[in-house]
């Protein structure tokens, strides 16, 4: 989903493009608790929305800036003239994009996916507000578990999570060179 926004932001300087960029990075800058509470008000109290849907939209919103940034970075590495080159060789705009731009965005898209997955998976503040009966995320249930019990389960689970994240990031780094995008 970050793809079209990233493409538009890197390829065109339009009126307000700076503002759009700021809006899309806002979820990084605004504290998670604020976003979570705002979304709770908006989705659940006003919108009477399903818990699952709310959680989904909330997470999409916090991931959006990451994917936009990462994909923008991969596009900035690509010579903007390759599209013109493809068109001059007989490809129409769409084919030029599919055959030339998209393959060169792949690493960026994959990196955005990994980064997004980790961010979403580890997020507490937004999830805390948007989770509800029957629908919750692992860190949130860990947090509530911790409020009632104090046993090594959480410590063990945390260790597993840390290892899982490290392995995932390392793999991504090896395969895609994640660090050049972040």
């Amino acid at each position, binding site marked *: 989903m970050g793809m079209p926004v990233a493409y538009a932001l890197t390829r065109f300087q339009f009126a307000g493009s700076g503002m759009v960029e700021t809006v899309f990075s806002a979820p990084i800058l605004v504290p998670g608790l604020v976003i979570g509470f705002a979304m709770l008000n908006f989705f659940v109290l006003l919108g009477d929305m399903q818990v699952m849907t709310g959680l989904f939209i909330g997470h999409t919103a916090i991931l959006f800036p990451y994917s936009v940034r990462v994909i923008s970075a991969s596009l900035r590495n*690509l*010579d903007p*003239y*390759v599209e*013109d*080159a*493809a*068109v*001059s*060789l*007989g*490809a*129409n*705009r769409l*084919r*030029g994009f599919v*055959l*030339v731009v998209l*393959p*060169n965005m792949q690493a960026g898209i994959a990196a955005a996916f990994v980064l997004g997955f980790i961010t979403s998976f580890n997020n507490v503040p937004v999830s805390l507000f948007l989770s509800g009966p029957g629908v919750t995320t692992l860190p949130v249930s860990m947090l509530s578990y911790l409020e009632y019990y104090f046993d090594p389960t959480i410590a063990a689970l945390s260790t597993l999570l840390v290892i899982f994240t490290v392995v995932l990031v390392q793999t991504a780094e090896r395969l895609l060179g994640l660090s050049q995008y972040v």
Partner: protein
Amino acid sequence: MPHLEIRDLTVSYEKNQPTLEQFSLDVEQGELLSLLGPSGCGKTTTLRSVAGFIRPDAGRIVINGRDYTDLPPNKRDIGLVFQSYALFPHLTVFYNVAFGLRMRRIPKDEVRARVTKALKMVGLEAFANRRPAQLSGGQQQRVALARATVIEPQVLLLDEPLSNLDARLRVDMRQEIRRLQQQLGITTLYVTHDQVEAMSISDRVVVMNQGAIEQIGTPESIFAAPETVFVADFMGFDNRFSAVVESVGNGKLRVFWGGAPIELRWNSKFGSPQSGARAEIFFRADDASLVAGTEASGLAGQVILHTFHGNELRYLVETEVGEFSIMQDSAGERFESGAAVTVQAQTQKWIAIFEDARKTKGKSHD
């Protein structure tokens, strides 16, 4: 009939500020024509209009008798080479070159044969399976050339193709482009801001300024006989001064140089200015010499600075009509800073320009 005709092309990015205005140009079959000018003079805009990436506000582009003006860029059959090469980073050299043929749905066997032939022409047949990132800049530009010419385009367009290469490689690639262009007999537009490059590679050169043509001609004629002040500046005439015309006639123009008259070539097609009119005189640093003292005939002056350039020394000399830069053989007599000298004119290659003689071209945009 010219192979490529540009007729009254007008392009403006902003309202009432045309980058190109009523621009017309003919390129003959198989000719290499350079568009030469400083950045912002409209040369790249011209190129991109021919390629179809810019829609002109007015005017027509005709190639081989067919009107191309409303044709989208992917239907134009034009080879384009970019300053940044713009190779496809995810494809091997072979598939980069094959791209245009595959878009044209040419059978596989023929694609293979034509790509191999094109790579052979640029000396890269051994690199077919490499990725662009594994090649040097010169090799990448050769791939770009092969990619643009393998489709046998009507017109080849080159947009500052050598700007990203170092000086020595640039000279090699210049010859390579020229050789390839002549072998294929392909009509070519070459955009550059480097006058040496334009001179060495072209059949004809178009000097552009502010969206209009200053002068068109062979490299020799433009180098030796600029017709406007702008072209003279751009062609490396180091020295310029204003002089009052003494008399005109017989293809000669007389002005005073340190008390004595000197005669310059004057082409009467630029009119016959009255005596007393002001002319701009241009000469290169090689076309004057220095003698010690102020007794000799010529213009008296004083050496301000000298710099060493191998076989030559360049002197900066202050005189009553201005400061001049003058090259002398470094084996000859040397003059220290502050020395009194006389500047003697060797006027065979000097030129005189009257800005009133020709209507001043181009409107000021700033």
